[in-house]
């Protein structure tokens, strides 16, 4: 390997006294003193979370307030640490969304096991589970950190929907095309 020998110049007298360098350093720190702080006062101010951030997995509803999960259990299947557990249930026949047929009776995510890989979000055919911007979670017991369905919906809230898949299915059904 080629080496390059650097020539070290001997220090001048001024440099040997350290003083010009010290003054130069002090000039820099003085300039720094008048700059605004670069820190964030964390609990009061929160950082801007960038788009696509993988925070705590949450369940979302569509803008009509319908829970989107149909308990297909794909996320449960794909989850590497097996943090998700779904107990499927049927939707009440009298319900407005009876044609969806299934919804989770219970939906648990064990946040102590979750590795925030985002596979569940990727695999979900209904766009019902999202890793959103929540980055800090805490609890007093292990049980508390197994998030239940209502907690997951509370954290997830409502996200905009581009397809309204099940609404269109019903429209097609009403228009006489049951196999839309």
């Amino acid at each position, binding site marked *: 390997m080629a080496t390059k020998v650097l020539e070290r110049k001997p220090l001048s007298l001024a440099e040997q006294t350290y003083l010009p360098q*010290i003054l130069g*350093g*002090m000039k*820099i*720190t*003085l300039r*720094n*003193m008048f*700059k*605004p*702080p*670069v*820190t964030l*006062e964390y609990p009061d101010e929160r950082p801007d979370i960038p788009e696509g951030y993988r925070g705590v997995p949450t369940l979302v509803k569509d803008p009509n307030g319908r829970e989107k999960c149909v308990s297909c259990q794909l996320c449960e299947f794909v989850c590497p640490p097996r943090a998700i557990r779904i107990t499927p249930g049927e939707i009440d026949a009298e319900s407005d969304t009876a044609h969806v047929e299934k919804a989770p009776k219970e939906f648990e995510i064990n946040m102590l096991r979750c590795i925030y890989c985002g596979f569940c979000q990727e695999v979900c055919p209904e766009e019902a589970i999202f890793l959103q911007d929540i980055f800090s979670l805490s609890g007093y017991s292990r049980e508390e950190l197994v998030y239940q369905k209502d907690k997951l919906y509370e954290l997830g809230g409502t996200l905009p929907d581009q397809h309204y898949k099940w609404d269109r299915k019903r429209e097609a059904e009403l228009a006489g095309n049951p196999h839309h």
Partner: protein
Amino acid sequence: MEWNELLLIVFKALLVLSVVMSLAAYAVLAERKVAAWVQGRVGPNRTQIPLLGGIPIIGTFLTRLGVFQPAADGLKFLFKEEPTPGHVNKFYYLLAPMIAFIPAMTTMTVLPFGQYVNEAGEVQPLVLANLDIGILFILAVSSLGVYGIVLGGWASNSKFPFLGGIRASAQMISYELSLGLSLLPVFLWFGGSLNLFNIVQGQTDLLFGFLPQWTILFQPLSALIFLVALFAETNRLPFDMPESETDLVAGYNTEYGAFKFGLYFVGEYTHIIIGSGVFVALFLGGWNLPWVTLPAGLFGTVLSVLIFVIKMLALVFVFMWVRWTLPRFRYDQVMTLGWRWLLPLAVANLVFYAIIIAVIEQF
């Protein structure tokens, strides 16, 4: 001496003591704030005293400034559990913080911090004890502080404090010499007086009618050597060998906690404040401002004290500014600088000014 006269002296002493103590407490806060500003942070801004902090704008402002932080820190030092490790030498372990603290506090007795004009029309110093050997007293007593550190390091009976203590003693002895030698030309300059008040008064007049007669303008090298030695004596970065957090945990005070640590801490900052005061008195004209004559009466007295304190605090700020700018010297570099550079320089400086002053006196 009448007893009310005695009472007055005690009162004055207590007043000065409390001012210096609170200055030391706020120096700690200032240090943290300056560090924060230099590093682009905010610094202490949470502590609040219920009623005072609740005042709409001022309270918030003071809280953001961290004004209540020293009170919280002081209370913490007072009320914390005070563990004494089992392996220490109890007697010296307890004695060491006091030895570090008391000399630092004692030196302020001879430091003049203002002036007043008495009934006879003479200018008198505001000082607790106007000793003729003022500066000798300061040098002698403040160098006792090293015993506190050495003793603390030794009595702790563990290796990091021990190394810190050894480094402290070597460093302080090395720089004490340059410290003393750098001052001799100043005393020669002012006709051999060791009284700090006389030296300050000697800097009152203007040279050729426009140049302030501050010692630093005539003896910049003495001032520089004194300042560097002062940094070393007060164990400030770049000379904080005894503490060197990065390699010695916390140096001599590793085994100390709670109030005993607080004593070391306040002692260190008192040392800086008094050291700055001595530097201001010797080199920066004390309470004199160039081209301004202090008025007589109470107003002039207050003004002189204010000028002195502001100069002193500015110098304390420089101490902090340097601390957060420079890295620490290596141990051998400290020794090289002390023995091979500062000491010969101080001797040369002394000889040079001795000749100059002799020549001036001939004409």
